[in-house]
């Protein structure tokens, strides 16, 4: 029993290491892109599978973050995720529930997932909120712009980190 769990743990660790390597390469690339357009995109440093340092000087506001994640047009989180403060029938199920996410992931891990989930899973359908989209035909109004500002991402990080239950 023990040995099997240990082997599974080791395998998972190896897999994670590979993902992280891929992640570093990707984020490194994005960072270069970000520097070219520093006005709209936030700069950040990835350590492991996390962005340890906040994207802004001021700490995020969890109450504002709660409103943001439930916003169907600005953050869109609730279109895919459940476990948020929104009527159950308005929550999507294209993605795992975020209930208790603050107990599963550190602040820095949550930050990287919002800024660029594709650093961890290039096939992810979760948009990279902190970067400019590599997608085709980005509409004029959005071209070269991140989906959320650094402040908004920090507000959401503060809110999700508070979901411990």
């Amino acid at each position, binding site marked *: 029993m023990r040995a099997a769990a240990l082997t599974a743990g080791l395998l998972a660790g190896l897999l994670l290491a590979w993902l992280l390597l891929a992640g570093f390469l990707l984020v490194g690339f994005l960072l270069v892109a970000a520097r070219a357009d520093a006005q709209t995109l936030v700069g950040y440093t990835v350590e492991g599978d996390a962005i340890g340092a906040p994207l802004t000087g001021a700490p995020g506001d969890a109450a504002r973050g709660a409103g943001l994640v439930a916003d*169907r047009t600005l953050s*869109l989180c*609730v*279109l*895919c995720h459940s476990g948020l403060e929104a009527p159950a*029938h*308005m*929550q*999507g*199920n*294209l993605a795992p529930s975020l209930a208790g996410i603050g107990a599963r992931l550190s602040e820095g891990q949550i930050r990287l997932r919002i800024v660029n989930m594709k650093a961890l899973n290039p096939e992810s*359908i979760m*948009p*990279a909120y902190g970067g400019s*989209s*590599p*997608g*085709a*035909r*980005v*509409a*004029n*109004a*959005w*071209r070269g*712009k991140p*989906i959320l500002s650094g402040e908004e991402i920090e507000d959401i990080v503060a809110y999700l980190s508070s979901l411990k239950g």
Partner: protein
Amino acid sequence: MRPRPRAPAVIAALLSIPALLAVSGAVALEQGDRRSGIAFASPQTQAMQADDTANPGMLWVMDGAQLWRRPDGAAGKACQECHGDAAQSMKGVAPRYPDFDAGLGRPVDLSGRINLCRVRHQRAAPLAHEGSEMLALTAFVAFQSRGLPMAPAADARLAPFRAEGRRLFEQRMGQLDLSCANCHDDHWSARLGGSPVTQAQPNAYPLYRLEWQALGSLQRRMRNCMAGVRAEPFAYDAADYIDLELYLAARAAGLPMETPGVRP
């Protein structure tokens, strides 16, 4: 009597495989998994679509029936003068579209075909894609095939256009960086917010969408999804839409036509 070898039948069957594969094999949605959008709708919406006296789309079908009989253009001819009773001449046409037009050297969808008849045969001006007259005529023609299975044209000349449609369907686009396939192939049984994602089936178009409070075309619906992922939609009648429609038709083969559909 010694049974004759059935080689000719076998060869014929083998020969038809590439044609079949060209249409329905080259899609990412298995035949048995195909579901019309109506299967995901609420019982109220389903009842509204099923009852012709409650289905608002029937108003456009009735307008279309009048336009069918109205002489138009420099030729002063009505559709009916050349095509006769639509219930007969147009039955089975819509499930085959988009189809190849030799003159243009590329595929046209049903509204494109109707505009070609206006220009070539009635010598009238083409109708606007999303205008009420075009929607009415397209709904009327497609309505003649209600209940028939979608049967996409097998013309080999369509293959490259259908392949381009698939490429577009699977291409990540917009600020959200999502492809049509991300939602409609990979997550069709899930919910996006409060809405079932569905399979993006084209078998009920043009259809009445409650959100539009009007009948709208398949291209209008695709524009909505493109705007949703914050991508720049193609212009109406753009070749890209026809290619997408061709691919959608191949994914829909076998589903019954439902025009005029009703959706939330």
